[in-house]
């Protein structure tokens, strides 16, 4: 009875805390500007199925893709087991789903194999990350915390899976010894390998079994509450994020309607722009509220995998720009603003901005707008769009572009070409 009560309290606390954090995340994403991504629902569902469930874009690199698929499938499917654990925990039953009979045995056998898969997958990932010296796992933005975050997740998953297998092994042994509470149920193809290592005394076995059970469930609930602080949040956000993907060609950049109105008014004085209500306060982006909610959702979805940075021509050739850093900076600044709001009830000026305090001018001007980062991202993030918005702010609000870029603008304005040539010479090529 006592343990049921403790279980209920822990469960309620974990779920409560998680929903609180989810609400904060949603609020932070809503800091962004509006953008309509409700069109073409069929195509959007397809994208989500292919990219999120099917992990289509991971398979550009087959080896990590296979391992990742293994860990992902294992982790998702084994979580079905959570249902049983929660029922057992609340009602004091034991292996309540055993009523499924033969199917239960099948299910459990599958869980065990998957658990082994997850374990091995995570071990290989840990080795790759820490000993393999893969270039994309280092970089300026991969400071102490992001690296620790990645390792923590992998170690936690290994521990959870180990607890799961130990729990099963002891349970199995207790079943065989005929303990009345431990009904004969399940099949244990993997955990039975552990049986020889276990003690014989049933008291100690029960102690181990219970510890592993509690460790597993408390571990999973802790993990759930760790998500909002981690790059691992992608396991949830990848679904909405891929659903709301950009569907237009990669080369097509957004049209700024606010500018269209002004340009129309300039070209045709009789043009009456629609009312200025709801128009953004500034052109481009200087800080979080100037970006769209989709940009912000992407920042939360970023897995910090570095695939974008590893294909970025600027980064490859040693420039400061790293598209992964653009996403990580955006998330950090967004969370800073979120905390500011939590503390003060509303946002209080802190003298900081996404541009300059986090992302430097040198970074945004190094981008060739080549879309390699967008193509490489396994969860359909578009770092280029944020870079563009920052440039728009620098150019249209501050007139702060590099001098040669300003000269190019001047040439287009005066001669209709980015170079200093006379418009009247435009068809001289015919004569030579």
């Amino acid at each position, binding site marked *: 009875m006592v343990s049921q009560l403790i279980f209920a309290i822990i469960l309620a606390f974990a779920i409560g805390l998680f929903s609180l954090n989810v609400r904060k995340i949603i609020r932070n994403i809503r800091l962004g500007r509006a953008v309509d991504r409700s069109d073409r629902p069929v195509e959007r569902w397809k994208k989500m199925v292919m990219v999120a469930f099917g992990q289509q874009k991971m398979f550009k690199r087959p080896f990590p893709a296979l391992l990742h698929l293994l860990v992902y499938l294992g982790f998702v499917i084994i979580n079905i087991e959570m249902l049983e654990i929660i029922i057992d925990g609340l009602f004091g039953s034991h292996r309540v789903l055993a009523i499924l009979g033969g199917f239960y045995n099948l299910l459990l056998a599958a869980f065990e194999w998957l658990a082994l898969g997850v374990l091995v997958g995570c071990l290989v990932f840990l080795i790759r990350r820490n000993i393999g010296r893969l270039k994309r796992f280092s970089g300026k933005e991969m400071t102490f915390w992001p690296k620790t975050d990645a390792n923590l997740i992998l170690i936690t998953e290994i521990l959870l899976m180990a607890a799961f297998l130990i729990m099963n092994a002891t349970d199995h042994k207790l079943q065989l010894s005929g303990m009345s509470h431990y009904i004969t149920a399940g099949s244990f193809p993997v955990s039975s390998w552990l049986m020889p290592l276990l003690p014989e005394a049933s008291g100690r076995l029960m102690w181990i079994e219970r510890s592993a059970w509690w460790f597993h469930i408390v571990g999973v609930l802790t993990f759930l509450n760790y998500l909002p602080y981690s790059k691992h949040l992608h396991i949830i956000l990848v679904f909405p994020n891929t659903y709301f993907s950009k569907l237009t*060609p990669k*080369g097509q950049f957004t049209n700024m309607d606010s*500018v269209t109105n002004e340009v129309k008014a300039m070209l045709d004085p009789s043009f009456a722009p629609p009312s200025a209500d709801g128009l953004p306060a500034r052109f481009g982006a200087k800080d979080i509220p100037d970006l769209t909610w989709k940009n912000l959702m992407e920042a939360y979805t970023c897995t910090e995998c570095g695939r974008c940075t590893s294909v970025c021509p600027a980064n490859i050739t040693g*420039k400061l720009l790293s598209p992964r850093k653009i996403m990580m900076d955006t998330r950090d600044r967004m969370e800073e603003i979120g905390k500011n709001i939590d503390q003060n009830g509303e946002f209080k000026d802190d003298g900081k901005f996404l541009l300059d305090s986090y992302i430097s001018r040198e970074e945004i001007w190094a981008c*060739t*707008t080549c879309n390699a980062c967008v193509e490489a991202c396994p969860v359909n993030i578009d770092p280029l769009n944020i870079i563009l918005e920052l440039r728009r702010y620098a150019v249209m609000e501050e007139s702060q572009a*590099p001098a040669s870029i300003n000269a*190019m*603008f001047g040439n287009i304005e005066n001669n209709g070409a980015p170079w200093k*040539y006379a418009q009247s010479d435009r068809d001289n090529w015919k004569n030579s």
Partner: protein
Amino acid sequence: MAEMVAKGETPDILFWVGCAGSFDERAQRITRDICKILVHVGIKYAILGTEESCTGDPAKRGGNEFLFQMQAMMNIQVLDGYEIKKIVTACPHCFNTIKNEYPALGGHYEVIHHTQLIQQLIDEGKLKAKGGESFKGRRITYHDPCYLGRGNGVFEAPRQTLESLDAQLTEMKRCRSNGLCCGAGGAQMFKEPENGKKDIHVERIEEAMATKPEIIAAGCPFCMTMLRDGVKAKEKEQEVQVLDIAEITARANGLF
């Protein structure tokens, strides 16, 4: 175009030459070759001449949406004034901008890139690759321009034109949707690169050289500049030529 209108004629297609194709000496040669191909197959084409103006691509990617939209609206006025329906461009940047970004500002046209047009002409049997230089068995590697390939999914047309010449097409490690940028896009063409270890075009040329090509094929005047700079930096001008798909086609057809 104005002359055609004066004579009461309408063109089959408008050839959008672009700033590089108009002013850059190297790109002018590509422009002339595209014209030769059009004449050779009997397509009635027009150019805007001095009425053409920058599409606004570098302004937009440089963050100057005002300037971009000013350029776009002026160009749309001119194009609509001549009732243009179909446009072929010599530059992937013009192609992308007119095709994808003009519709939001009221400009709706059917736009193709010159490599797509050449591919169509080969498919229709109008271009036969006869009577000119033979490219049979020669090693050619094709560099995907970002705004043609990744930006708009045109990967096959340029490759098929090369395959139809029986050339030996070799791929770089980073090709098609994974292609590496030449370093010119996003208004980089008009400024010095930021501090780093290396120039992007050198990185790209090293990769191209690894395929031991006789010819590096391009489809963009900006890539052309960058790739040539790369070849020069490696002092390989004697061994490797950088040619546009249009130039290769014109040579294969003996159009001089």
